[in-house]
């Protein structure tokens, strides 16, 4: 069974994000980039399926600038078999990403598509769902367990009240949640082997997708900084402040 995994290049989780002074976006100059953490989980899940003998081929796809090939190489080092890079320097919104992925799905005909539930840069949580709709596939989102069973896949989903397990017919789309697995490190020998794995580059135009954004960002602002705490002298003072200043009791 062929598995397609989508990975995105985003600002490293550990970087302190700075908003541009003109509030048009986030400052990306000289900022460390890395694979979106949910995509790491998606790659890991595909690799585990391959190790179990369920998956036979893992194709990894990334949409983004030339440098996104770093993240594809990482996925190849982790165990993916070949990469597809859809190269663009344009902004790619969720719908456009879903359309590009749909075009790849049409070509590759994977049985399972695994994506992160969201990317930590825009936090949209849309691409997987949109892809499922466009491709006419069933979807299992926020997966904390994925068990392939013949031509079906059981996906345990993390929802507000607990866990829901859904059974989907393959081919299907799965999006990963944090607890699905703990991704491994890319080993140095595998990083070297990954350099020789095939990586095919395409353009959005090759796939017939128009990237014109449908949404306009009006303003980006940094979150409010937390106010410093204060020390209170007595329980009475604490109660008074909670009542009259914080107004929480």
């Amino acid at each position, binding site marked *: 069974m062929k598995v397609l995994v989508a990975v995105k290049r985003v600002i490293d989780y550990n970087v302190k994000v700075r908003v541009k002074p003109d509030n048009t976006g986030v400052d990306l100059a000289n900022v460390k980039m890395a694979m979106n953490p949910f995509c790491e989980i998606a790659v890991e899940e595909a690799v585990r399926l391959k190790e179990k003998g369920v998956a036979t081929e893992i194709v990894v796809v990334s949409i983004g600038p030339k440098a996104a090939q770093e993240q594809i190489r990482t996925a190849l080092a982790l165990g993916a078999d070949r990469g597809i890079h859809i190269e663009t320097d344009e902004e790619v919104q969720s719908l456009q990403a879903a359309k590009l992925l749909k075009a790849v799905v049409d070509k590759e005909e994977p049985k399972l598509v695994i994506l992160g539930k969201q990317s930590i840069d825009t936090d949209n949580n849309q691409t997987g769902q949109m892809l499922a709709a466009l491709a006419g596939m069933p979807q299992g989102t926020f997966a904390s367990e994925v068990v392939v069973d013949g031509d079906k896949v059981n996906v345990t989903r993390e929802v507000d009240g607990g866990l829901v397990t859904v059974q989907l017919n393959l081919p299907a789309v799965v999006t990963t949640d944090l607890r699905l697995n703990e991704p491994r*490190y890319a080993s140095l020998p595998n990083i070297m082997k990954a350099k020789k794995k095939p990586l095919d580059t395409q353009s959005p135009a090759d796939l017939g997708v128009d990237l014109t954004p449908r949404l306009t960002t009006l303003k980006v602002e940094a979150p409010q900084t937390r106010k410093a705490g204060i020390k209170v002298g007595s329980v009475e003072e604490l109660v008074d402040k909670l009542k009259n200043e914080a107004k929480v009791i």
Partner: protein
Amino acid sequence: MTAKTPEEIIQALRERVPSGKVLTDPDDLQTYGKDWTKVYEPNPLAIVLPKTTEEVQAIVLFANEHGIGLVPSGGRTGLSAGAVAANGEIVVAFDAMNKVLDFNANDRTVVCQAGVVTQQLQQFAEEQGLFYPVDFASSGSSQLGGNLSTNAGGIKVIRYGMSRDWVAGLTVVTGKGDILELNKDLEKNNSGYDLRHLFIGAEGTLGFITEATMKLTRQPMDLRVLVLGLADITNTMDVLKAFQEKLDLTAYEFFSHQAMNHVRAHSDIQPPFDTEAPFYALLEFEALSEQQVDDAMAAFELCVEEGWVLDGVISQSETQAKNLWQLRERVSESIAPRTPYKNDISVVVSKVPGFLKEIDAVVSEHYPDFEIIWFGHIGDGNVHLNILKPEDMDKEDFFRKCEKVNKWVFEIVERHRGSISAEHGVGMIKKPYLGYTRSEAEIGYLKAIKQVFDPNGIMNPGKLLDV
């Protein structure tokens, strides 16, 4: 002078430091009377928290008049019982002298009071877009005064050196009560003896450091971390050489497989790879461009071909870099429940493999049921030898046996021309063993120097040397 009761002395002290606090509460005496070692029972007369250099001077003059010992106290994270007051001394704590006084962007220097916490200086540097590179696990509590008085090292020494290398100038109060401004922050100043360096590493035995001008540097760029599985302990230095031929490393640490097992049992941290190795090396370098990453790959390939390295990983993100560091940084806390007997020893880098083998052989021959945990800053020739207490052995018995081990270990240190204290200082814990590293003649000079700065022996009595 007429003899005074402790109460009268404390009252007189209060009058001498009008703006500083004097504490005598039993809880405060306990807290301020000891450092991280917790071996000696604290018993200070009082704690005083001065606010200015002049107040420190007043305290020193007062102590000279009354013949009372003074114990300088920083963050009390020291590991040699340097900041311990067990004999009725007055503890001088720097918590109230914790201000960054000045910053000079052109000189890239920052003037700090001695009580500035290491992490506070690191953060201040970061806010200026700069970097203070001395770093270790206790930097959230340790103070600059303590760092300099122990010449603290840490995890970046291979690239950035010790605390000593970052001091442009010092203000000190000598044990005689003189205020000296040492080196005046100059880069070049060949005007005779550099007293600044006598106070660095003096463990408070010559006087107090009250202010320090520290140098800052540019922030490191993209830091990458590798963890390698080594085939044998003797390969640590081959691997170091292979990488250093191509890269400037910012860290080269090592830990044994047992050490990693303790870390993994203690906290939920995943191993770097499945391949089991007896020892692991952690390397860090700055990836200024992809070239450095390629160079690291090439060095790795060589190490594998030579059979020195069994497997390895490289961080693909800052998160991964941080997680890989945890494997090394958590060793200390993970073995703490096992009452480890700790040694902090060093030899020149080229002698490390033979040195480790010898010590390992001696300890395991005499005490086969002792578990030995090796880790440390091996790129600087500095290793931490930790012996864990067998569960069924009582503490007294264990420590007595370790004392014997100590002697053998230090004899090996001496033979390899190493140090009995690489970065933790001497304090009281290592004092009996100083002779393994310093000759009798040299110790004579140390004592003479002490005599010059502190003729009445009021500064940190009983630490480092007996006079």
